């Protein structure tokens, strides 16, 4: 059973790799249908391998499974939105990110589980994991859009017309979409931090309400809220807002990875 799950995961990885290669090879040109097909197949294999691993582990626990889930959610989010919002060309930015998450999840798969199985999972922990998953995948997509804005704006400003420039949505469209995702991400992160805080105050975290992951997440949330507020109040937009959004995203990834990597830093007992 275990090896079958690993084969599924391997097939998923190969699918992502093929899709990423095709997307990068056709950068600025029409993306072949096979690229999307590989991407979709990879998602299916990834889903079943993740399901199998969760089942074998007796629950959705551990940083490896969490990262794998975030990669899958990001992939599904991109696949379902790319046609509606003409984001196809941004696949060249998205799939490597998915692949990176996927490979990383494999590397940290056997990392110690942070949740004590004996005390059960419960709805609060489930909500915490789900909201954090949604937040990281939505912010990932927002980061992809931010990189699109930076790329496009620099092309137009420097008057170096790349064949891709005309193929990705307008700067204003990317900004609006990015803002939408940031709102959604903030709401999810807020809910994730809230449920985490509830778990921590229930004395299940060794640091109590000062859980490092929650503090880092609160910091990330502040950065994103600053971006949203600034864009409303002072008109922060364009590449400045995009760079800030990228910074927020990097901070989130680093804090999530750091808090989960350092032993006993983020543990619910």
């Amino acid at each position, binding site marked *: 059973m275990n090896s079958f799950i690993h084969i599924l995961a391997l097939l998923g990885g190969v699918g992502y790799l093929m899709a990423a290669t095709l997307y990068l090879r056709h950068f600025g040109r029409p993306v072949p249908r096979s690229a999307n097909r590989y991407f979709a197949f990879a998602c299916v294999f990834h889903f079943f391998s993740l399901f199998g691993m969760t089942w074998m582990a007796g629950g959705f626990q551990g940083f490896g499974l969490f990262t794998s889930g975030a990669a899958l959610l990001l992939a599904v989010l991109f696949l379902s939105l790319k046609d509606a919002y003409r984001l196809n060309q941004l696949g060249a930015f998205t799939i490597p990110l998915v692949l990176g998450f996927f490979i990383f999840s494999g590397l940290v798969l056997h990392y110690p589980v942070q949740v004590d199985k004996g005390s059960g999972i419960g709805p609060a922990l489930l909500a915490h994991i789900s909201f954090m998953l949604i937040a990281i995948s939505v912010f990932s997509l927002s980061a992809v859009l931010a990189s699109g804005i930076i790329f496009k704006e620099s092309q137009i400003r420097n008057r170096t017309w790349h064949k891709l420039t005309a193929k990705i949505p307008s*700067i204003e469209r990317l900004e609006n979409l990015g803002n939408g995702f940031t709102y959604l991400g903030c709401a999810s992160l807020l809910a994730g931090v809230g449920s985490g805080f509830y778990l921590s105050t229930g004395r299940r975290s060794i640091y109590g309400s000062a859980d490092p992951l929650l503090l880092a997440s609160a910091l990330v949330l502040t950065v994103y809220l600053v971006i949203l507020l600034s864009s409303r109040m002072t008109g922060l*937009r*364009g590449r400045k807002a995009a760079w800030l959004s990228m910074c927020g995203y990097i901070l989130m990834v680093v804090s999530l990875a750091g808090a989960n990597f350092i032993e006993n830093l983020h543990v619910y007992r």
Partner: protein
Amino acid sequence: MSTVRKSKPELQALSRASSERDKLWPKLFLTGVSHHTQPLEFREKFGLSSAKSQVLLERLLSTGYVSEAVVNSTCNRLEVIWSSQSPEPAHGLQSWVEEMITDVAEFKGLPEGFFYNLRDIEAVRHLFRVASGLDSMVVGENQIMGQLKKAFEQSQARGGVNGFLNRLFDKSFAVSKEIRTDTKVGERSLSVCSVARELAQQIKGENLKSCKVLLIGAGETGRLALTHFCSAGVEEPLVANRSPEKAREVAERFKGEAITLDSVSARLPEADIVIGASTLEMGDPVLVGESETLAAIKSRKSETQLYLDLGVPRNFSSKIENIDDVFLYNVDHLQEVVAHNLGCRRDEVENAERIIAQAVKKFEKWWELRLVEPLIYGAIENFEAVRLGEVKRSMKRLKKVGLSNEQMSEVQSALDRLSKSLVSRALSGPIDALKKDADDKQSVFDTFRRFFTG
């Protein structure tokens, strides 16, 4: 190189075959004049109106020389695509068509070789290139497709196209469509104003309905730019001009608002796109400077502004390009984009030519098949008649043997199967040879005709 001397009867047979072949195979001609061969002062004489094109078509078709014709007259070319099954020599027919054209265009005293004349497959290749916009002054433009369609429909309405030209034009439209779909030869704008509009769409989105445009300078360039922007959804533009009357006139035309030049700075924050198309004298101060733009951006809460400077000397200060949230493009920048787009189109010409070469080859094959089809059907008919006769004769002989009706019908079906198979095997080799591309195509054609069709 060795030559085979042919006897007199053989030569007579060959010439008979050729004339029969010409009956089946219409001669295709293309007579015309274009921007490639003649300067504007000559070309403009041949820009026939729709009525005159009709007259030319009528004259060509009313005699027996031309069996099908299409007259394509645009500002850069006049071409007559015609086919003939007349036994007259090609040169004579071409001179006659040239005379008809000059007559209708009322132009006398043309030098020898004024028109170009293409024949058969070269004419096909030229028509495919014209339909795809590869022969146009602006490579890849798609206006020619509409003009060609109109010319074709005009001739169709008059009954000037039958099977052959019908097929040729259908194919040329299909090739043009294929080229536009599979290559980027028709993509990317090639005029400064359309590039400016595309630039705005790259920043503000496909639909510019929510964008406010401020036009400074209501001259011809400004009006043209506004036409492009209004076609992308811009509504109620602001128009400023030195002469208020002209500003009002242009504003009325585009359902906008006329403002004075003095109020430009005050209204600047409202505009998402600012177009400068005013003609300044050297040494005149710019119409929009850095401080005004900074103030506008501040009051817009950093909402992006696009400045398009179409004037020479420049209407806007070059320093405004350093301001965040401001994009500045002047005529040179836009020309660079146009040149880049033109380069991209030219890069695609090679791919388009490849598609045309394949299409021409296919058309040639169809044309040759059209020529051999009657021969093949004739041979099949002859063999079928012989086969049926032989089966009937054999059945008569077998009747004398005293077989029962049941046995007779079985024998007949066996004989039918056998004879059909024999005929099909006997003909398959020669038919294949006839369909195949070969250097000695003519001799294969004649041999087949002599042996199989009697």
